[in-house]
């Protein structure tokens, strides 16, 4: 079979398809890129709001506790974490807003694949940092009760930091060896980017 015969087959298909009719079914949910990203948008908007709340609360907390090293550091860490949540969410929302179905195919597919790959990497790093974030939260909670737990119980806080490392080890183990869904997503996102690179010959889109 030659390419001309493929074209002949395509022409047969074309003729047969001309007999079909397409109609708009009212009320039907569309399943395209935008609907795929709808959940992401809601999640990111929620994350930005939570981050703003955390940044505001932690900001006022460390300003009020500048005289105590433990609460000050905890407040600064939580403040930075809140800002990171806002920045990450804003970046994702901007990327998602640029993903429209009427964009050129490779442009949209590259954007979606990059967004996914970035989300997965970002999720990993938030997970790593999250293993330790409850330690400053503990410091914060005790400070609200009027106790500087770092100064009062340094050994107890040391154990908490140690527990953070255990949590990190478990997280890394699960990410690396247990073929967690996250791992599968990383592979799929990488495969899609590789597929686009193969198609474009590694050149610019």
């Amino acid at each position, binding site marked *: 079979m030659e390419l001309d015969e493929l074209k002949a087959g395509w022409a047969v298909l074309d003729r047969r398809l001309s007999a*079909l009719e397409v109609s708009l079914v009212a009320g039907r949910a569309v399943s395209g890129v935008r609907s795929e990203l709808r959940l992401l948008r809601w999640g990111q908007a929620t994350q930005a709001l939570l981050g703003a709340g955390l940044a505001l609360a932690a900001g006022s907390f460390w300003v009020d506790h500048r005289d105590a090293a433990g609460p000050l550091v905890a407040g600064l860490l939580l403040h930075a974490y809140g800002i990171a949540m806002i920045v990450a969410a804003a970046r994702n929302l901007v990327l998602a807003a640029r993903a429209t179905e009427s964009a050129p195919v490779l442009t949209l597919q590259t954007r979606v694949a990059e967004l996914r790959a970035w989300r997965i990497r970002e999720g990993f790093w938030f997970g790593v940092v999250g293993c330790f974030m409850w330690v400053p939260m503990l410091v914060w909670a005790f400070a609200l009760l009027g106790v500087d737990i770092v100064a009062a119980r340094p050994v107890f806080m040391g154990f908490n930091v140690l527990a953070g490392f255990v949590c990190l080890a478990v997280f890394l183990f699960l990410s690396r060896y247990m073929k967690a869904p996250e791992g599968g997503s990383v592979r799929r996102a990488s495969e899609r980017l590789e597929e686009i690179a193969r198609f474009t010959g590694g050149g610019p889109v």
Partner: protein
Amino acid sequence: MADEERRRRCEALLHEHRRIVFKVAAVYARHADDRQDLAQDIALQVWRSFGSYDQARPFATWMYRVALNVGLSHARREREKPALLGADVLDALEGGMPIAEPDERLAQLARAIEALEPLERALALLYLDELPYAEIAAVLGLSETNVGTRIARLKQRLRRQLASPASTEKGVPHGT
């Protein structure tokens, strides 16, 4: 009233270019039900995105973009290897004409395109539809030179595939 006018215009353009909808659905959906769903998804996405269509530009180019993006999104969700339309599809799609006898050319076409990756299928569809390179470039977002290179590579691959004995032995998953 403006909405009604817009809907009428969109439906008229959809009707005029309906073969694009069905061809993309055929290339990216595996089963008859999926194809029907995908054709509906494409039609609705065309309607929803219609506001972004610049009427100074060719509608077909814009519609190929929307349809292929919805098709690729479908293929990604399915995670299985989608297959090209088999000759059975007209029996399954609403409004289809009954087929007296299967066409071997369609079966061979299905086998050839089934082996391609989703993005290559998009290129194959545009190539087989005999779109000019400039239009393929506008749909895909590549330069015209790059389109020429990709098509040359696609032709080589299809020729190799058509020449290999495996391509004639492989079955088509549509009962063609």
